[in-house]
């Protein structure tokens, strides 16, 4: 039964060859067309190698290339908008550092590490860098009767930290960029953190935006008023704080408290803006390399496709010609 069907197929193939020589060329053309049209069975049952698989891959790779190019342009436009605001906010933390100095190596009992990351992915390695640095701080500051807690901003860092440091995460905040970033929102957030978390030193880990291709992981340290008082009395980097007259408020402690809270909200505002800029810049470069890779893959697939196509045409021709020569010679 199967053999009869096969013979019938063979017969069908040879029938037009016997008719005339001009129809050989027609059939060759038909065979070529058939290999482009369907899954390998041409007219009169001629078999050919399928290029459908390669063509499907080419289509999907081309779509991916278009999507990544579009994402890159979107990231570029968002970056332009937010870079202006980030650069304007850079003056905000400088007065505080000029006054209180910057002592990241300070040794305190209660450390809180505020990790700033993005909510959306596809932005390169910046979130992993922030998480690695936060875990580094955990290791440096761990010791007897010292406690370290995390406050996490952004989904991506939360996903990475929850895996092994779940018990140390004090608070996690997501969907920060649903509305455009502004100082009011960040100051409310800072207030929230200060109310709910006990701290001696807050370390804010973020990626500072230097340029579209360079993001530097940075850590800003904000001390609690008690620690500031202690350090200024002890001398050292904060030693000249004592020489400052304090105007306003009932006591120096009250003014110091307002000062540190204000410092925290200002530093947070700048950090969040810089991290958002770094996120868009990293996404731009990730999407750019992704479209370039897709283009290269498309080139390779096109070569494979052409090879497959030509091989199938050659096979058809060989079959036809060998069949014809078998009949004549």
């Amino acid at each position, binding site marked *: 039964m199967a053999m009869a069907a096969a013979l019938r197929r063979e017969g069908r193939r040879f029938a037009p060859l016997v008719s005339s020589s001009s129809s050989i060329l027609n059939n060759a053309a038909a065979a070529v067309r058939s290999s482009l049209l369907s899954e390998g069975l041409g007219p009169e049952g001629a078999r050919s190698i399928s290029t459908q698989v390669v063509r499907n891959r080419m289509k999907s790779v081309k779509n991916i290339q278009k999507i990544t190019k579009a994402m890159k342009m979107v990231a570029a436009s968002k970056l332009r908008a937010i870079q202006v*605001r980030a*650069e*304007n*906010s*850079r*003056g*905000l*933390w*400088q*007065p*505080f*550092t*000029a*006054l209180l*100095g*910057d*002592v*990241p*190596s300070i040794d305190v009992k209660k450390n809180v590490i505020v990790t700033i990351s993005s909510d959306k992915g596809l932005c390169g390695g910046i979130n992993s860098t922030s998480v*690695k*640095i936060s875990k*580094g701080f955990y*290791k*440096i500051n761990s010791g007897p009767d010292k406690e370290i807690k995390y406050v996490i901003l952004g989904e991506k860092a939360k996903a990475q930290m929850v895996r092994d440091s779940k018990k140390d995460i004090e608070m996690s905040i997501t969907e920060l960029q649903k509305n455009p970033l502004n*100082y009011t929102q960040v*100051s409310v957030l800072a207030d929230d953190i200060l109310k709910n978390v006990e701290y001696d030193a807050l370390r804010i*880990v973020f990626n*500072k935006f*230097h*340029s579209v291709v360079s993001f*530097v*992981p*940075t*850590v*800003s*340290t904000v001390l609690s008023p008690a620690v500031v008082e202690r350090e200024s009395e002890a001398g050292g980097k904060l030693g*000249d704080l004592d*020489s*400052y*007259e*304090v*105007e*306003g*408020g009932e006591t120096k402690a009250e*003014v110091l408290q*307002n*000062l540190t809270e*204000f410092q925290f909200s*200002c530093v947070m*505002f700048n950090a969040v803006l810089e991290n958002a800029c770094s996120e868009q810049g990293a996404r731009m470069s990730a999407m750019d390399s992704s479209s370039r890779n897709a283009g290269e893959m498309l080139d390779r697939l096109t070569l494979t496709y052409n090879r497959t196509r030509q091989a199938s045409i050659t096979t058809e021709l060989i079959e036809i010609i060998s069949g014809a020569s078998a009949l004549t010679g």
Partner: protein
Amino acid sequence: MFRQAPRLLARSMMARSRPFSDVPAQPASDSAFVEAWKKVIPNIDPPQTPLSFMKPRPTTPSSIPSKITVNFVLPYQSELSAKEVDMVIIPATTGQMGVLPGHVATIAELKPGIMSVHEGSEVTKYFVSSGFAFIHANSVADVVAVEAVPVDHIDPSLVQKGLAEFTQKLSSASTDLEKAEAQIGVDVHSALNSALTG
């Protein structure tokens, strides 16, 4: 030929270095921190700290300088950065405070009021919502405010309306929180009012 080499090298280095808005020539860093980091985590580079991004401040001069350098910053922009002026009057919580070159180092908390910057004969007035002012011994004044508007941008009719609204809210407030918020509104609007008239 070899005498020219350092000059040529310096020129080529200057051409290559691009100025970022807040990176100084030599990055200063806390060496104790870097060492502690390297001991525990040798594989990853230590993160940068804000100190390496700041221009170093001038040291305290021995004689009183003639002008005071003002940095007036807001969250959205640096209104004045390193501007040399004669005098600044800031609205501290204890009253209007005039700052001249050679002023003693002070940390002042600000209340809503007018800040005026005197440069020669011209005076620029800003209405400041609140913030802090640091006056350093080297005659550099940093004023950090949350919101500031030039006085001529304020609309008197809106001020009156706001004042009436918050006074009414204060009288009808029930909880402490509402009372505090209404009181803040009243303070700010009456300060705005006196800023416009005075």
